[in-house]
């Protein structure tokens, strides 16, 4: 009886792992790093994690997780609240709807798709912020951030794959 309960808790915790790792990684990304100019083009960790989980474990990362992660990111980073929430839901939805396309594709293809998603996300968030503030912001930093995020994706994917193997894999056997 007790072991069954423990097993159930263990299972639930493992199911929550994708969301919790994303929450932690977004928090880490908000820490000060003391690199000149980095704070302005810091990689978008939220987008990377949402993309990864939507491809590899869509069952454990529903749209509501993307929404909550976005709100969390907006609160920590100080961006207009709701901005990342919207971007992440749309990214999550875009990948979910193309799920069959991603099955069995090589990492290079997935990386290429990520770069498209990152570009679209940057463009959309740039438009939204410009409209919200009624001002034209220079798009240079926005696209610089997109490029950095695309560059950092393989590392993040490797990190998340390790987490997936360590925490979630036992669920499948």
């Amino acid at each position, binding site marked *: 009886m007790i072991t069954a309960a423990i097993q159930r808790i263990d299972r639930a915790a493992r199911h929550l792992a994708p969301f919790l790792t994303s929450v932690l990684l977004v*928090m*880490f*990304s*908000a*820490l*000060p*790093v*003391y*690199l*000149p*100019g*980095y*704070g*302005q*083009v*810091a990689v978008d*960790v939220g987008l990377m994690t949402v993309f990864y989980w939507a491809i590899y474990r869509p069952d454990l990362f529903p*749209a*509501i997780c*993307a*929404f909550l992660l*976005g*709100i969390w990111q907006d*609160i*920590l*980073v*100080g*961006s*207009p*609240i*709701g*901005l990342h*929430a*919207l971007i992440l*839901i*749309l990214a999550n*939805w875009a990948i979910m709807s193309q799920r069959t396309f991603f099955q069995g594709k090589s990492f290079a293809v997935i990386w290429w798709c990520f770069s498209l998603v990152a570009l679209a996300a*940057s463009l959309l*968030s*740039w438009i*939204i*912020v410009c409209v*919200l*503030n009624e*001002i034209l*912001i*220079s798009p240079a*930093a*926005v696209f610089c*951030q997109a490029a950095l995020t695309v560059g950092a994706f393989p590392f993040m994917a490797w990190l998340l794959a390790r987490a997936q193997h360590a925490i979630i894999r036992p669920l499948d056997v």
Partner: protein
Amino acid sequence: MKHRAASIAKVTGPIRALLNRFALLFLIIAAFAIMLLGKADTLIVERARSSVVDGVAPFMDALSRPIATVSEGVDRMSRFFAVYEENAQLLEQNARLLEWQSAALALAAENSTFRNMLKFVPERGVSFASARVIGDSGGVFVRSVLINGGKVDGIHKGDAVVNGDGLIGRVAEVGLRSGRVLLLSDLNSRIPVVEEKSRIRAILAGDNSQSPKLIFLLPGARLEVGDRIVTSGHGGVFPSGLPVGRISSIGERGIRVQPFTDFYRLEHVRIITEFPGQVAGQIVPSAARPPLQK
């Protein structure tokens, strides 16, 4: 039994799919609604934000310490290699500063005699709170930092934030033990400033670039590259005379000011919680201030 379960699934399946589709729509609408709420009623959003940040501030504080130590170590190492050049520079600067010191001492003496002659009543002092930077703005659209000081430390919304180099920005949101500082380069930052010598007034407006620009200048105002810009104190939100930066370029992109502070190096900051003419975060109109003792 099996047959029945299958037929139930046949009915609930499409409904569930429909719900899922609407959930997405609902979440998208919710995101838009929150965005509009944040734009229209900033108070609610601010309060929610600062209470969440209050909760995570201790963790971020603890996590940011090792990073700060590593960065300090790297900084120290890189300075070690420049020690010879730096020493020569400092010797030269020291000689120059000694000259300034004697000039300042003479002026201070002169000033105090003038004050005596005028029976000048000194204004009340300035009080500070200190805080550590625990979060960077990891974004393209905002220039702000999180600090580990809040209402319990006497910090109010709108307070000026400085470090040894000069003005950094103002407190935009404040929780109990944490706060968010809007840097002067943020596109929502507007600070009344004045050119130190000519006393030409302007507003320093951030636009998310490294060097904010001067706006609302009187036509015909003559400014030059290298002029020092300080806060003017107009509006009473900031004390006057806080060093802000130097004019770095005058051209088609407007008059740009290079702030004295390196925003990426912020580790400890000071928040001016009280200064003459202002009581407990409230701007007091001069008529309502307690009369000065004669």
